[in-house]
């Protein structure tokens, strides 16, 4: 059957695994202007931005003849757990004949869960996919490694654009690998490519470091957040996000406890301010803010979709936290004007730079 899924997180992982089970995979289109327009037009006006982006993605996939859409469910309190149900109703109303497979917790309705799993695995043995899974995991590790690395090189590149060119090439090379051996070989090549980029050096105490925190979708997807990391890099700041694919997979998918430690530490730091898990990534957001402060970062940019429920609570807490570290909240939706965000980011970076200079002078 022709199957598709939301453009979120490790898409390449879903693709490789589903192909292993003999499905015809329709790769969702990377969200662009058309996706946003389609999504906004057909979504409830006050649904959050990720909902609208997914809506657009689904419509585009349906246009390409998708029969089944697989997605994750949830049980609140964040709205994301109910996305699938509303998407299903809207698509039905629009006249698309598409089946939804929404995975909820196995503990709620185990019969339904195993039935759905059987459909996805196409009656193949699920263990057959393990080598694919291991390869994809290594691939994610590599992609994350490079994502983190380029944000430390890009601020200091001599020729503007050289890192972006290299990043494009790296992406192409990595997506052509098929197994672990090829991946290891190509990782070497890519690392060398990045090593050869010419950079200028600035003293350690003048380097600006900014952490990016917030709701996972807008933090991770550059097409949704207006490529904020590149914007900051171009202004000469190093960046680090609170969310990376690998950490997400480690925490949510892998069964082992040891890998979860990083995320648990962050949540612990956050629980001092938000006592309960209130859904979404509010605790992680606040925890990461504290974490960036402890790691001596110069500032934090907090991203959230407009009217995001959990992130509004974490935004309320920035009142207290911004006494420790400068925090700026950007709320994103289909209306985000590029120039507006650019101006705010530039002003924020100027402020951080002045603050740093003042500090080093008094020290």
């Amino acid at each position, binding site marked *: 059957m022709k199957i598709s899924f939301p453009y979120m997180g490790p898409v390449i992982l879903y693709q490789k695994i589903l192909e292993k089970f003999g499905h015809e995979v329709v790769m969702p289109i990377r969200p662009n202007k058309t996706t946003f327009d389609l999504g906004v037009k057909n979504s409830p006006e006050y649904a959050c931005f990720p909902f609208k982006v997914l809506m657009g993605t689904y419509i585009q996939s349906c246009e390409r003849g998708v029969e089944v859409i697989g997605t994750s469910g949830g049980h*609140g309190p964040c709205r994301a757990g109910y996305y699938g149900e509303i998407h*299903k109703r809207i698509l039905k109303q629009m006249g698309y004949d598409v089946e939804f497979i929404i995975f909820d917790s196995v503990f709620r309705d185990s019969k339904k869960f195993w039935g759905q799993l059987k459909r996805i695995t196409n009656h193949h043995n699920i263990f057959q996919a393990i080598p694919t899974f291991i390869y994809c995991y290594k691939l994610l590790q590599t992609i994350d490694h490079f994502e983190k690395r380029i944000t430390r090189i890009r601020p200091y590149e001599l020729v503007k654009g050289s890192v972006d060119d290299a990043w494009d090439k790296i992406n192409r090379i990595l997506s052509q690998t098929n197994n672990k051996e090829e991946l290891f070989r190509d990782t070497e090549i890519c690392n060398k490519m990045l090593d050869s980029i010419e950079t200028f050096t600035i003293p350690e105490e003048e380097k600006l470091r900014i952490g990016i925190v917030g709701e996972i979708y807008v933090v991770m997807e550059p097409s949704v957040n207006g490529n904020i990391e590149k914007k900051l890099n171009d202004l000469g700041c190093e960046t680090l996000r609170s969310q990376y694919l690998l950490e997400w997979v480690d925490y949510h998918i892998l069964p082992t406890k040891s890998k979860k430690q990083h995320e648990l530490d962050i949540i612990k730091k956050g629980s001092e301010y938000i006592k309960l898990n209130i859904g979404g990534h509010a605790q992680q957001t606040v925890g990461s803010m504290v974490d960036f402060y402890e790691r001596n970062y110069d500032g934090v940019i907090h991203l959230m979709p407009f009217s995001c429920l959990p992130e509004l*609570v974490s935004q309320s807490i920035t009142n207290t936290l911004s006494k420790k570290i400068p925090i700026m909240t950007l709320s994103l939706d289909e209306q985000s004007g590029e120039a507006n965000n650019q101006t705010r980011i530039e002003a924020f970076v100027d402020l951080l730079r002045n603050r740093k200079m003042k500090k080093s002078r008094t020290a």
Partner: protein
Amino acid sequence: MKKIGIPHALLYWYYVPFFRTLFEELGYEVVISKETTKNIVNEGIKYSVPELCAPIKIHNGHVSTLLDTDVDYVFIPRFVSLRKYEVFCPKFMGLPDLSLHSIPNMEKKMLTCDIQVRKENIADIQTYQSLMETLGIEKKQFRRALKAAEQEWTASRRESLSRGRESLNKKDSIHIGLMGYVYNVYDKYLSMDITKKLEDMGIVFTTFEMIEEKDIYAETAKLDKELFWTFSNKVLGAGLHLIHNNLIDGLIHITAFGCGPDSFLGKIFEIESGEAEIPFLTIRIDEHSGENHLITRVEAFVDMLKRKKSGVFI
């Protein structure tokens, strides 16, 4: 006698007989903030993140006005869950944290407890453990107070339900389902007193708390998946009960600007009422008042319903 302040906002509207009786029985003086006014709203806006929904801003306004008086505590419970598999909107679950970090001088007077029970009747002593410790009250005394509070509250619920039966019996006038959370519908400032306006027009209306719990959950059980927010489920179930049993002439959904659960709930109402051919109106409210548009829209809606009911189409 020590004073406990209760903000006249959010779930106050559903649980006031409960908490007032509880604290009075425990020997405290209960101070309830005055009904929402322009000043309270402005105060709330001052201490809230701009994107928050109006009910939460108003809540912050009430808390801040209470802090200006001589109360010893301000009670801000953290509502977590009232039913298995159901939770509250994240803003309710983070309400004490949100208020603590938004409103100045809150730390000393904050009184909170997690409300995590399995039924709507929240008189479960387990969940008040932390409250008993903070106030230093014996278990026996607390249990007695809970009992009294429970009685008051069930009486008020019975009254709502009988009001609901009454309005369903009035067959000849226009009947509207007025769906929205208690703090949106009954806050006179926020809803611009829509209940009074409807009564003045001679309209009979039913709100969600006038409908039996079993009817509500019978409807939500039919969905592929229930919503996971307690009061959203109630509003949805009540609305669907009215739609599917053909009890109403029209449906009005009152929702606050930026309400997350309502963005989905409203869509379901829109689709379902469309299929049942029942006229549907959404009224979106926020802290900006402007009564005239509300009157115009409601009047137009009611006129349409009247024409439809009398069978005269123009």
